[in-house]
Structure formats: C-alpha cells, structure tokens
C-alpha cells in the first residue's frame, strides 16, 4: 500500500524515535502523510505534538506500552481496534498496553489536531508496519547487546530470547533501540500467527463509560465559561427580521443576548466551497448564560419575527418534484451497458416499480455542541467532531486567523452517523466567542438538533427490468435525488456486470433544506429499493430469491471490468453462509423469511430476517447476518457494529418519518419522532467469513441490507410489498397496523 499517491514510501519518512527524558522509548508516526523532515520528537509526554505526528507509542523501561492517539471515537470502536493492530506486530501482551486517547481528564496530555476519522481500512498497513518496525529495532538493540546476529533472536510477548535461551525484556533495550536508525526492511507477521487480532478486546473506555466520567463534548467545561443557546430560523426559507429579548434578559443567569451571522455569511458571499460547512444565510439570536438551563429557558422567551426569502417547502411539494425528476429526460448517466431500449422492446415482461423514502435527521444521542475560546493570541476549540481539520480551516476563514493559532481538541462523541462531519456547530461557537470575547459552549437542545439539522434527503428510485426466457435481460435504475445524487461508484455495485443491458442515471431537485451524509449515504435506502425489487423479480421468474442472486453473480465472477466495485466470489460466499446459518427455507411453521444482500463501504453483507405474525401484525424476531470484512480485528467490537447497524436499519425503515410543512419540520423530539426501542428489537446473529484479506468498513455496511430483508419478510408473511418508508405507514394504510 502506498501512504500517499505521490510519496515514495519509506519507513524513515513516516516514523521517528527518541529516548524520553523520564526513560523509555518514544515512537512518533503518521498515518496518511510522511513526517516533515523538520518534525521534532518531544522530550517528554507532556509536550506531545500532534501537528508533527498523528500518534505516538511509548515503551517504558518496564516494558509497558502506551499508545497516544487523538483519533475521534464516535462509537465504531477504532480506539480499541487500531491499537490492537500495533500491539500485534510489536508483539506485546494486550494487557500491558494502555490507550491514552481523547480523554478529557488527562491534564498532561494536550491534544492538538489530527487528520480526522481514519478507518481501519486505510490504516491497516501503516499500523502493522509501525508495530513491526519498533519490534525490529528492539531486536536489533538486543542483538548488539549480546553481540550476535539479530536473525538468531526471537521476540514474543514483550520478551527477546537468544539461541542460549537467555532473555531480555523490551524495557531492557528501549534506550538503545530508540537511538538506532529506523530500518528500511521489516517483516510482517503471518496472519495465521496473530494472537491479539481476532481475539475479543473490550472497549478501552469501558470503565469511564460505566462510571459516568467526563468523556463527551457536552461534559467539557472551563472556569468562567458561558453556555450559549442559539435561536435559528424555525423554517427553511426564512431569515430573522427582528427580535425582542426584553423578557429573556430578565431571566436570572442570563448574561447577554447577541446576534451572529455576519461572519458566517462570508462563506456564502465568498462562495467558499466545502461540503462540510453547512450554513444558513440568516442571523441567529444567541442567549449567553451562566447555566445551560437559563440559556435554554431564555431562548424560549425571545420574541422573534421571521421573513420568507425563498419557498417554504412541504412533503407534498417534495413528492411532486421528485416524481417529476423521475420523468426528466436530462440526467447524469453513471453507467450504461448494452442496449437497454432493445432489451425492453424484445422483453416477455417488463416490471417497473418506484420506491420512496423521507428525510431523516441523525438524532445523535449527544446533541450538537462545541466549546470555543477566541482570544487575541489563540483560539481553542473543543468538542465532538469527525473532521477536526475542517473545523480548524473553517474557523480560520471565519475569523481571518492563521490556522497555526487554532487548536482543535476532540472529545468522545455521543454518536456521529454523518452529522459530525459538518463544521456548522463549531463555526457558530467560534463566532459567538469572538463576539463576546469569552469562553463559551454552544449547546443545542434536542429540538434545535432535530429541527435545524442537516438531513438525509428524501429520495425516489424508479427501477425497471426486462425479462425474457426466464432471464433478466435489462435493468434500468433512475434516481430522483435532492441536492446532489449518488456518488459514481455506487452505479458499479451489484447488479452492475450481472445484466447485459444496464443503465444507472441520476437527476436532482434543489431544495433549500440542508441535506448531507447519513450513515451509509445513498445506499441506506437504495439497497432496500433494489433488494425488494430483486425479490419481486424472483417471484415473477418463479426462482428462489437466493438462487436468483447466485445465478446472477456467476456473470461477474471473472469480470475484467475494472469499474466493478464488488467481488462476485465474496458476495457468493456471504450469501451461501447466511443461507446455511439462517436456515433459509427450513424455518419452522409461522416464521416468514426475507433475504437481502448488499455490498457497500468495501464489505459484503447478506441478511435473512425471520418474521412472525402476532395478532396479524408483523414482528421481526431474528436477523441472521453474514459479513465479509476481511480480517476481523476485534470480534466483539465488530459484532457490536453489525448488530447495531442492522437494528438501526430496521428501525429507520420501519418507523422513521420526517415531514415538512411550510418549510418547518413536523417532528421535533422523540415524542413525535419514533426511534426503534428494546421491545421492537430482533435478535441479531452475526457470522464472519474467515479469510486473510485486509480489513474493510464495518460501521455502515450492516445497515443497507436490513430494510430489504425486512420488506421481503413482510411480503412473505402478508403478500404485501413495501415501496415507501416507513413501513408502519404502508401497513397502516392497508389496515394491517391500523
């Protein structure tokens, strides 16, 4: 793997070592970029500098290993799994490894800035090489001490052994090892020899989580900090006209009421293009108070008048617009094979279906918040963000300051789901602090979060297939998107390559409602549409739905088409695994099954949903999942991700509805927006395909197939196809859940 397209990869360029003043060896390394030649290794732990290196490893004189990394944790478990990879190649015992990351109660460890959320997939090789390089330096130091050739030595579990059976601990040679030149050639372990990777490791923050220690952005505070509650336009399409804060100012604890917006509008005026900056053109009213409660209460007491600057949209309007987008002739063609017109002309049967999904808010359990302290000398920003580099860059533009003057400290995040990719909350916090010249924390309420969000856009898909002689001869997918459209690679997912005449095209409607990435962008709903459609085709062709997929996949197994993103073989393997583990076709009486398989985020996933009818109503009892994500680094964490992804996918497909009227969201809290809860939750059984391929994504790929598996099980039970999410609404219409 190359670290960077233009980099001539050399170990000396990504890793440096030094002896710590307090003893022990320090290794600094970078994930995606090489180290600057001038990058200096710090003398002690208190002065770790995360501008020069992404992460550090300390090996103490006693042989204990501490890994320092500012990587953000949104719940996918990378804080645990990434250090496991280093520890594996370094060959130390996991119990002797401590991970010091993203924790607010560590005073002597000041985090600066990191390159954002780096997944296991992109760091697998670098993390392995870092561990292996350090191990080799320790072995070389021991060889020098014994005056023997390094190849005669063995290192395992933190101990180096020579041919005579004498031993040295890593700690015994760290000082010498740190002074050696970084080796160019190293040997990685054989995957079969792994002893840490592949074994369950409990979340490294578990003790802090279960005892309620400060970890999250909302938990962060400094002396004299004020709480800021922001009043934003209630409808998309409105801006602030005027406001009266007389009553609000009389509430005890309120320090000031201000407006912001002038500076943020610079982004819009300058046409500053960044997909992670989502802003309103409106002024916003900000209450500053000595407590969160006073700030929230006072905001409610503000009397604001809003004026309309663009159309106030509604769900009905979106339905009309997206329907007309489906009829649009001018589209962006993302992939085209063969002759679709001919295939449809010569078909025995043509089937066409339209699928719709609503907007979705992210609803991270921790509402958006950010701390900012803007002073003449420097700017401190602290909070839950998935993109610290973007936050730093945006605030530099906002306040016309140098990036070097801005530090961004990441906290643990109470969920991300895509929402914390955007910098809007940090920009607001910085503009407020700049205006009042005080340290502040912007705190959103649930209502703020849900009604002034950056949503998964509403979308429609039209899918049309031609059938001839028992085969699918043509496939036409048309996307009616909002503010964008699926990224090109998706058009090369299944069933691309399986059907000779094939076309994927997309057109978009531009809405003034802010939209953005939501867990498994686009595929979260596309997978449901497509996998429901194939289930319907299987019925039409009188073929078992799983057999239909396996037949189709044969055509892509030896493809020479470089654009095809998925592997026919790996998809076939997960389908066969789930067919066996999920007892496909052999379920007991009264259990109805639905199948779906999908490739996304470089992983292949197949799912079978088992559904029963209770008083005639569908209840999902169990979902069996087969996943190929390459080497599974931490099985307990990996299963947790898949279990959660599947239930999240079912919850949103079944219940989530988010309507607009006069530009205003019609749900604003959990009393009017339904999230899946314990009693609606099926048992999720996860199986991994065992192989030695490099690890791929896991936070997202479990989600997309879930809606399809459930929709197909509902059809098996009730003979009713789901075309629109949420399913409860479809079922209510047909009085099944009336």
């Amino acid at each position, binding site marked *: 793997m190359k670290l960077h397209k233009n980099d001539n990869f050399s170990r000396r360029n990504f890793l440096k070592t030094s002896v710590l003043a307090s003893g022990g060896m320090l290794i600094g390394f970078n994930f995606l970029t090489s180290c600057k030649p001038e990058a200096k290794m710090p003398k002690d732990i208190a002065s770790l500098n995360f501008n020069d290196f992404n992460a550090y490893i300390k090996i103490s004189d006693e042989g204990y290993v501490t890994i320092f990394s500012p990587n953000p944790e949104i719940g996918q478990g990378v804080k645990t799994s990434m250090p496991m990879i280093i520890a594996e190649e370094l060959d130390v015992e996991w119990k002797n490894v401590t991970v010091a990351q993203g924790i607010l109660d560590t005073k002597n460890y000041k985090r600066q800035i990191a390159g954002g959320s780096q997944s296991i997939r992109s760091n697998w090789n670098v993390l392995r090489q870092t561990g292996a390089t350090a191990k080799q330096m320790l072995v070389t130091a021991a060889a020098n001490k014994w005056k023997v050739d390094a190849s005669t030595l063995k290192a395992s579990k933190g101990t180096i052994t020579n041919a005579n059976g004498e031993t040295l601990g890593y700690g015994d040679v760290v000082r010498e090892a740190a002074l050696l030149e970084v080796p160019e050639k190293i040997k990685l372990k054989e995957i079969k020899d792994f002893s840490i990777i592949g074994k369950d490791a409990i979340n490294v923050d578990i003790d802090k*989580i*279960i005892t*309620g220690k400060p970890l999250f952005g909302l938990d962060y505070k400094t002396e004299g900090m004020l709480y800021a509650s922001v009043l934003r336009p209630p409808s998309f399409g409105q801006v602030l006209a005027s406001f009266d804060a007389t009553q609000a100012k009389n509430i005890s604890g309120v320090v000031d009421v201000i407006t912001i917006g002038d500076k943020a509008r610079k982004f819009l005026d300058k046409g500053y293009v960044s997909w992670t900056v989502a802003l309103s053109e409106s002024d916003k009213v900000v209450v500053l108070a000595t407590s969160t409660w006073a700030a929230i209460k006072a905001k409610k007491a503000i009397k604001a008048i809003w004026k309309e600057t663009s159309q106030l949209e509604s769900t009905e309007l979106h339905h009309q617009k997206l329907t007309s987008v489906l009829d649009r002739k001018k589209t962006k063609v993302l992939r085209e094979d063969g002759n679709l017109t001919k295939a449809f002309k010569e078909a025995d049967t043509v089937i066409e279906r339209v699928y719709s999904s609503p907007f979705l808010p992210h*609803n991270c359990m921790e509402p958006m918040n950010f701390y900012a302290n803007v002073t003449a000398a420097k700017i401190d920003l602290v909070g839950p963000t998935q993109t610290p580099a973007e936050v730093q860059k945006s605030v530099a533009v906002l306040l016309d300051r140098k990036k070097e003057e801005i530090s961004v400290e990441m906290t643990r995040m109470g969920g991300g789901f895509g929402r914390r990719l955007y910098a809007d909350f940090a920009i607001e916090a910085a503009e407020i602090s700049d205006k009042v010249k005080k340290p502040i924390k912007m705190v959103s309420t*649930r209502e703020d979060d849900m009604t002034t969000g950056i949503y998964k856009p509403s979308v429609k898909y039209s899918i049309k297939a031609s059938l001839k002689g028992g085969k699918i001869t043509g496939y036409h997918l048309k996307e009616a998107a909002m503010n964008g459209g699926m990224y090109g690679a998706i058009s090369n997912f299944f069933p691309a390559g399986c059907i000779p005449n094939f076309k994927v095209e997309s057109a978009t409607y531009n809405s003034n409602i802010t939209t953005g990435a939501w867990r498994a962008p686009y595929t979260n709903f596309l997978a449901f549409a497509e996998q429901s459609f194939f289930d319907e085709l299987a019925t039409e062709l009188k073929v078992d739905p799983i057999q239909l997929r396996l037949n189709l996949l044969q055509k892509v197994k030896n493809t020479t088409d470089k654009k095809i993103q998925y592997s026919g073989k790996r998809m076939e393997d997960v389908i066969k695994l789930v067919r066996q583990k999920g007892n496909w076709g052999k379920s007991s009486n009264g259990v109805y099954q639905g199948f779906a398989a999908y490739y996304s985020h470089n992983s292949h996933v197949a799912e079978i949903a088992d559904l029963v009818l209770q008083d005639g109503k569908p209840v999902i009892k169990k979902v069996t999942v087969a996943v190929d994500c390459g080497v599974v680094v931490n099985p307990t964490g990996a299963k947790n991700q898949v279990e959660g992804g599947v239930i999240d996918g079912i919850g949103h497909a079944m219940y989530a509805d988010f309507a607009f009227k006069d530009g205003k969201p019609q749900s604003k809290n959990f009393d009017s927006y339904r999230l899946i*809860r314990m009693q609606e939750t099926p048992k999720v059984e996860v199986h991994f395909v065992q192989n030695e391929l490099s690890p791929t994504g896991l936070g997202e790929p479990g989600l997309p197939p879930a809606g399809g598996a459930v929709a197909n099980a509902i059809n098996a039970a009730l003979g009713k196809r789901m075309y629109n999410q949420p399913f409860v609404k479809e079922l209510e219409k047909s009085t099944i859940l009336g």
Partner: protein
Amino acid sequence: MPNYTLNVNGKQVSVSADADTPLLWVLRDELNLVGTKFGCGIAQCGACTVHIDGVATRSCQMQVSILDDTKITTIEGLSKDGKHPVQEAWKEIDVPQCGYCQSGQIMTAAAFLEENKNPSEKEIREAMHGNICRCASYNRIEKAVKLASKNS
C-alpha cells in the same frame, strides 16, 4: 436565586438555582456530575435517569425545588468502585458503542433489578423499553441485564 440542600450520592450539598431548574442541569452544571446525560429534555429517552429514593427517575423532568428529604443517586454514586453487578455485566458483555446513553441504561437496569431479582426476557425488554440507544446496542443491553440478575 434560592438555595436548596440536596442529598446526592450520600452527601449533603447546597446549590443555588431557580426553582424550576431540572435536577439534570443542577447535577451537570452546578455539581459537575456529568455522568447523567442530556438527551431529549422531555423524559422520552432515558439518558438522564437517576435514582430518587431508589426509583429510576428522569432527572430532566424533576425540579430541584421538590427534592428535599429525598436521596438522589447518580451513576457516579451507584457503586464505590464501578463494581455494581450491572456495571460489571456491562463490562463483561462489552455493551457500549458510543457510550452516551449507557449511564441512563445502567441506572434503569439497576433500579429494575432491585424490584425484580429474577426477571424473564419479556420483563427485561419491557423494563428497558423506555431507554433509547441510538447505536442500537439493545441485544447486548438485554444480555447484560440478564447476566447482572444472575450475578446479583
């Protein structure tokens, strides 16, 4: 602002707050007990669950002015060393993903198991239904409550 004396985690504490201030914000902003989380503010998600006289209660709906003569327990005071059977079960099952809702889940489970020492699967699912986990770690929450009931 008026003063109130509260008994939190076995200690008498004095706070100055408006009468309508929810216990949640007194705990978080005044007493620095940030383990109790803000999720919805309308008693729908359970992230702010504490024990008031042993009863699992949504602290976002409990005004500070009506809490004298009550004993308040937060996640920080559930056990001395983080070794309450529910906390231990949460660790053994490796429940959390993002972790934000988990102190509320643990407080709900701990109060439930005081009432029902040997719950059925159905009873566990009913008892935990009020607490939202947006990461959907529900399978593990269910397993951990069962495990805690065995180990209590």
